[in-house]
């Protein structure tokens, strides 16, 4: 059993029109090397599901997104995501705006192969007005009317972790995996990029076993990607690259800014990207953000 893929092989496993979920949260733990490879590819008409950061903005800017399903889109310290904002304000984006909790609830419904899960969340707001949701009445004595959050079934989920092996065992370190495990469980196939791919993950103590936070039966492909979350953070390894994020934001207000970002920053491949961004050795020293 060998799930190892090159970036090109990863792209070959995706198709136009797919619904793709992206793990992480805003500018944290994003599988950005996989996102950049999608941007370099011919893939199109994607539905992207995300707690959005630069992944959402870059995919929107590159015209890959037919529909964006999001709990928010933000760069955190830089609150407004410039390209998401640009395509929205141009009226060029089909969206499903969700509450953050509704998004994970929809992923959990998909993971449990249910058509929906009930919730109060969204009722009374314009998320309900615009989201096309149905309600359901509790069959029990309370007769409460609830929002039926539809399953968000993913064709593919993309995650970034610290370590993985060819069998699809993964290890994530750092304080929080966000909803990565539910993206994986909601997806037909999950592709994981890893800072380090080892021959076989050997865990000798029970505590460390918890770092393998999604069972390998959910993992379809493993891709080696040092600094694969850059310019987002991957604690405890490295923080987000605030200078790189600022340059990205600035490009959105420059004429032909995206075209230049595409050629000068994203470029033709990840090796070149990382060299131009400062080199793996330097980038690995990016300090962790303090909250």
């Amino acid at each position, binding site marked *: 059993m060998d799930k190892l893929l090159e970036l090109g092989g990863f792209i070959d496993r995706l198709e136009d029109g797919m619904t793709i979920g992206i793990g992480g*949260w805003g500018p944290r733990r994003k599988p950005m090397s996989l996102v950049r490879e999608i941007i370099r590819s011919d893939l199109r008409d994607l539905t992207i599901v995300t707690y*959005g950061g630069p992944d959402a903005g870059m995919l929107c800017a590159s015209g890959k997104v037919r529909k964006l399903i*999001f*709990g*928010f*889109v*933000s760069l955190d310290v830089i*609150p*407004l995501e410039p390209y*998401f*904002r640009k395509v*929205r*304000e*141009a*009226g060029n984006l089909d969206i499903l*705006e*969700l*509450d*953050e*909790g*509704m998004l*994970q*609830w929809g992923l959990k419904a998909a993971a449990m192969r249910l058509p929906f899960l009930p*919730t*109060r*969340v*969204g*009722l*009374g*707001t*314009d*998320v*309900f*007005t*615009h989201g096309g949701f149905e*309600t359901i*009445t509790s069959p029990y004595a309370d*007769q*409460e*009317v*609830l929002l039926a959050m539809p399953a968000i079934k993913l064709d593919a989920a993309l995650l970034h972790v610290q370590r993985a092996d060819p069998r699809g065992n993964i290890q994530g370190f750092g*304080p*929080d*995996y*966000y*909803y990565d*495990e539910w993206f994986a469980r909601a997806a037909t196939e999950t592709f994981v990029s890893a800072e380090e791919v080892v021959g076989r993950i050997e865990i000798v103590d029970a505590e460390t076993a918890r770092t393998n936070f999604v069972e390998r039966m959910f993992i379809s492909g493993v891709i080696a990607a040092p600094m694969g979350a850059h310019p987002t953070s991957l*604690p*405890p390894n490295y923080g987000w690259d605030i200078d790189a994020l600022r340059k990205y934001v600035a490009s959105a207000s420059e004429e032909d800014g995206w075209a230049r970002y595409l050629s000068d920053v994203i470029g033709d491949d990840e090796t070149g990207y990382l060299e131009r961004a400062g080199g793996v050795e330097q980038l690995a020293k990016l300090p*962790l953000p*303090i*909250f």
Partner: protein
Amino acid sequence: MSAPTLAELLITACSEAWRDGGEIIATGVGPVPRLAASLAMSTHTPELAMTDGEAFLVEDPVPIGPRDHAHGHGTGYLPFSRFFDAAVWSGRRHAMVTPTQIDQYGQTNLSCLGGTYAKPKVQMLGARGFPGNSIHHPNSMFIPAHSPRVFVEGEVDFVSSVGYNPARRLPGANFNDVDLRLIVTNLCVMDFGGTENAIRIISLHPGVTLEQVKAATGFALQVADDLATTPLPTSDELAIIDQLDPHNIRANVVKGNPSAMQEAA
């Protein structure tokens, strides 16, 4: 110690939101709400629980800004991956946030402004956790620049969080946990204690007039019978605030960092 600044008065005023609120997660988003939650836990409501701003629960509120031991010195674990089950949907949380718009019903907006929904004039962050927060647990708001652009006439452009608007109450749904507590601005403190949860001024900051507040608000405000002057922070509170904000990040919250004793405009 120098005279208190308006920012320091706002921190103490905001901290009142959590007083006697019980053993729940206190979340303050932004420097003033976060310092206020920390002050509440350090003084009048020690049973509060809070995180280090990331994933770890701490028993002593963490100072804001650059610090030693920024990561992983907690006594418990509350990552985002547990947040909805543990804190939000359980109702065991009280958050204070800064939305872009607030209306007469206490509905707020963080999603988008103007234009149409398909083509908004300004796209912001999206609804974030506002729909879930507002229908499940107590919430308060902090507004550093009270103006009719924030306190809008009619309804907010996009209802991100639930308020007390009867027209938005879907029949049969459960809005019993909608519980809006305080709105603290650079001018005054308000609550939802007016007729049918109408927004009501309960105290004016020193030097601020009722007319000033009304002129800065896009809808009619009720006024509490026992309208008070917002108290100045005590020297004990100022000392704690100083420990919680050693880099004086609070000095950047209100333009010009004025004294708490404002001149009447």
